[in-house]
């Protein structure tokens, strides 16, 4: 038996705030987020619009536009023992796109329309691996073949508008993986795609992760994706981590009432027609998170303590590191819906 593997990417106390348009308030988009990513695993970060999941992923590579955004002092993003937040720009650039790569939701807006896809894929290899243009081009063709594009030696000279949405996302993946990164951040990688194309891209990502042995940070709103592809899950709500667990534990024993509500709200193809469970109300604004537990105004179990005092992430005691930011962990007898 060996001990637990070393952490590849450690995020601690990450706070990314934005100054709002009129300079009147501060949007606390990511507010004290911590998690670890281990080599080779897939960690899902799941939540709805405005929960802070995308800002978290952008903060890791320091891609948050400053201003209006800023990452607060005291935040730590440690990759292989180095704090990325303290790295000088040239050293950060050596990590970005090389050891940590990213794919985005919308491949059309993330690709440059005036360069061929071959040039765009090859760019990272030229910059990071100092390949000649010719060598980089043949690497690009190799990558296009790897991501399942037919006739890669022809397609390499195509422009993004000549490709379908699914093919563009394959090009994005080829671009991200050409330097064989250790971490791939996939931010809603299939949200813009049709379901049959989504299945193709997910199969491709699974295969490449296995072949290249990289860790994947899968940012998504889709609990179905998380169930099928993540080893562990971080659930975010209102800028906070509200629950962490292995994927199986999260789905079988959702502990935070938000996770519970979200799971019940998902329409399913395998369930007969029935009324869906809806979480009442809506996500509050990032400039005015509620006091106490940020979910308490929408929570079916909340009591006085929830409005007064925010719970820390509490270990539910299953021995597998399942934690939830909820007072129900200490007072489980209160899990009785009010209505």
């Amino acid at each position: 038996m060996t001990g637990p593997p070393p952490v590849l990417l450690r995020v601690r106390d990450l706070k990314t705030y934005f100054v709002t348009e009129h300079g009147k308030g501060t949007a606390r988009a990511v507010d004290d987020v911590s998690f670890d990513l281990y080599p080779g695993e897939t960690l899902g970060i799941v939540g709805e619009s405005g929960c802070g999941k995308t800002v978290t992923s952008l903060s890791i590579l320091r891609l948050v536009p400053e201003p209006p955004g800023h990452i607060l002092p005291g935040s730590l993003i440690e990759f292989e023992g180095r704090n990325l937040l303290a790295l000088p720009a040239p050293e950060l650039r050596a990590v970005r796109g090389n050891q940590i790569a990213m794919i985005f939701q919308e491949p059309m807006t993330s690709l440059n329309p005036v360069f061929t896809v071959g040039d765009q894929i090859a760019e990272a290899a030229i910059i990071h691996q100092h390949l000649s243009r010719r060598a980089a081009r043949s690497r690009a063709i190799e990558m296009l073949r790897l991501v399942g594009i037919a006739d890669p030696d022809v397609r390499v000279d195509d422009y993004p508008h000549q490709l379908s949405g699914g093919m563009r996302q394959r090009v994005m993946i080829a671009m991200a993986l050409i330097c064989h990164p250790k971490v791939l951040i996939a931010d809603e990688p299939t949200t813009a795609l049709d379901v049959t194309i989504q299945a193709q891209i997910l199969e491709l990502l699974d295969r490449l992760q296995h072949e290249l042995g990289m860790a994947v940070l899968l940012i998504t709103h889709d609990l179905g994706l998380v169930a099928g592809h993540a080893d562990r899950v971080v659930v975010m709500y209102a800028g906070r981590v509200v629950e962490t667990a292995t994927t199986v534990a999260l789905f079988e024993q959702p502990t935070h009432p938000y996770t519970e509500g979200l799971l019940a709200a998902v329409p399913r193809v395998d369930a007969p027609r029935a009324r869906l469970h809806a979480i009442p109300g809506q996500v509050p604004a990032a400039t005015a998170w509620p006091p106490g537990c940020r979910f308490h105004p929408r929570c079916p179990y909340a009591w006085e303590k929830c409005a007064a005092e925010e719970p820390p992430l509490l270990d539910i005691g299953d021995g597998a590191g399942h934690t939830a930011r909820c007072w129900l962990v200490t007072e489980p007898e209160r899990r009785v819906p009010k209505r």
Partner: protein
Amino acid sequence: MTLVEVWDLVKHYPGERSWFGLGAARAPVRAVDGVSFTIASGRTLGLVGESGSGKTTIGRTMLRLQEPTSGRVRFDDNDVFALDAARLRALRRRMQIVFQDPYSSLNPRMTVAQTLREPLEIHRLNGAVSALLEEVGLDAAFAQRYPHELSGGQRQRVGIARALSVEPQFIVCDEPVSALDVSVQAQVLNLLADLQAKRRLTYLFIAHDLAVVRHIADDVAVMYLGKIVEHAPAAEIYTQPRHPYTTALLSAVPEPNPRATKQRIVLAGDMPSPAHPPSGCPFHPRCPHPKKSERCRTEPPPLRPVTPGHLAACHYAEEPM
């Protein structure tokens, strides 16, 4: 009783001309290519398909927001495509639409009250804005707000209230929850179901998400490249799909269950262009059916009953995958 009947609906868009409009026209895009169905009063037909399958064009053509190329739509004894402008306007009171993106379908310069009052004025109806708001679950205070002050779910509620204001019998719901977060999506789906029960509404529910459709539709029609490839009662199509495309579509939906063991069928390739549909069965180049044969390449399969009430357009529908 049948309320809406669509018969052999065709919508072709003329091909673009090359050389800045001076050259030869390209092949026309066959967005909708001979679609027929009926919807009984008080029921919901779910119309499912991926981008480019033609589902949105059907909804818009039925209301004559776009003119059809050919075909017929009957709405309660009215021949919709034969009506003159005045009678069409009168009929539109009874047929409404709710759009996918509630932000771009609301006028940013109009308050919620103004938005809701406009259709009432056009149709010279009396109706109270506050009652409409209450019906869609919004506080009366929302009447004075502008669209940018609302969340996505609230905007969609306003979109629904606007459709309801003229007391229609039939509503085309075009991807009404696709832009919403899952917890809000459930709220809006439940609202649509409640309104249907209360007002005896008939819905054409257009969506790409099979799971969403399962929670609202009585019958489901699946589209591929401008044609319906399968049409059946919802309970049946989800458990016993007959067309290989439906089977693949169902298997591709990510299930929120980490222990799910279902076999995922991953289709190869993209949907072909509707300007150049394949010969024979339009699905044959991507079809994973083991029986796929020369016949599929040459002979278009008609949409035909496989069991009573269950239609499929596949030569091998009796031997589903």
